[in-house]
């Protein structure tokens, strides 16, 4: 981790917000490192999860919300399950990515595009339409389907439906998302 001037950049509001939204007491973390030891994604993270906990305690909002790790956490619940202080670490990771999203940070852009395309598919059809989701993802990232090698394996299996299976209550679905936006939610 690069050096940070703790006292100059301590953001008390940020600490309070994370605590309120996650309903967790961050002060309980004593840096035992259990969460990081069990985290299967540490190799891909720019900041390991225990250090993220430390950064939040220290009110380091910018450093925390701009890290890549938030976009790579798979919510595998290993950290939450193994924290000796019963801190729901995975929930804190979730809350941090909500905040990062609202502030416009997404250093792992492909991940965000994939998640966004997924939710748009849910909003539009009520159920995820896998082939449509992939098409949208490819169009947005400008990557030709990076899984091109998989096409000959999956297509003959008839497992990728070529048409969506929409729900009847499509308007209800749209209203869930619309109300969420009206209430100030960031999609």
């Amino acid at each position: 981790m690069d050096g940070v001037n703790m006292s100059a950049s301590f953001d008390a509001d940020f600490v309070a917000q994370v605590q309120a939204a996650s309903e967790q007491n961050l002060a309980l973390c004593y840096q035992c490192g259990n969460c990081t030891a069990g985290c299967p994604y540490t190799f891909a993270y720019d900041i390991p999860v225990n250090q993220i906990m430390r950064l939040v305690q220290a009110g380091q909002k910018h450093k925390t919300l701009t890290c890549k790790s938030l976009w790579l956490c798979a919510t595998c619940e290993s950290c939450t399950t193994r924290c000796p202080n019963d801190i729901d670490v995975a929930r804190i990771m979730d809350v941090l990515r909500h905040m990062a999203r609202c502030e416009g940070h997404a250093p792992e852009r492909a991940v965000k595009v994939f998640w966004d395309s997924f939710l748009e598919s849910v909003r539009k059809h009520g159920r995820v339409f896998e082939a449509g989701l992939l098409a949208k993802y490819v169009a947005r990232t400008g990557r030709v389907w990076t899984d091109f090698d998989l096409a000959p394996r999956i297509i003959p299996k008839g497992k990728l439906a070529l048409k969506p299976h929409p729900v009847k209550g499509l308007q209800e679905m749209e209203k869930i998302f619309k109300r969420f936006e009206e209430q100030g939610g960031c999609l």
Partner: protein
Amino acid sequence: MRGHSFAYYPGCSGLGTSMEYDSSTRAVCKALFVELHDVPDWSCCGSSPAHTVDHVLSAALSARNLAKVESTGRETVITPCPSCLTNLRTAGHRMEKPEFRARVNSLLDTPCKGDVQAKSVLQILFEDVGLEMIAASVQKPLKGLKVAPYYGCIMNRPPEIMQFDDHENPMAMDRILAALGAEVVPFPLKVECCGASYGVARKDVVARLSSRLLDTAVSLGADVMATACPLCQMNLDLRQEQASQHSGRAYSMPVLYFTQLMGMALGVAEAELGFDKLCVSPARAFEAMAASTVANKQTERGSRV
């Protein structure tokens, strides 16, 4: 014989990439006198993308379905998919708080009370149907088939929410497979993550995590891996060659849903089990199993003479 009856939430992947999990689940439940009633007009639970965006939105996507179950008067809904299960259970858990429930309901047309229980198909097969009944229903024992049971990361975690089996060393699938006559190897990475939904955006990550699981199953001499999760199955089976490229070791490990193996042992028609939907065919493993059964019978007969 008293049967069971549950609301059933298939989950989106059941309509596509995990259609064989859905069809084998339905067939196995039928064979074990478990009635399934599809949740009327069920919609997506939002999976991971929803909870990474917002917890109220995520809960609302689940709660729309829980409210549908409430409208049918059923108390328990079951789902094969651990990701759907986590969302349904977490939504129910958080909605115990009236303030959270009110926020969720403010997004919905039909309010949700939040008192429907969600369980996995694995859980009800283990707890409600039970090993005794399963063992008694076996027609073709999986004798000689070495299976590595893989639960995935969130079937049992976090324990406060999932409330099922052990969170470090779950045994329900092990014991079901053993009741079917299979030889179950003690798989140490039962609850390790396979790479989840990062296959599309970060397949390097998935290749690394999945190859570790495949390596371990190979080193234990497993003939097949058994999974309970559509994402795990897809990462380990469809992406097996990507894992091979990453590790430099060629794998040919069949990765089946545990319900496919159950169906086979219970004598369910193959058409409903969807073995042809798997990328790595289990045919060789099954042939080896049949051969060893014949060999065993011959030795038995030989020793009797």
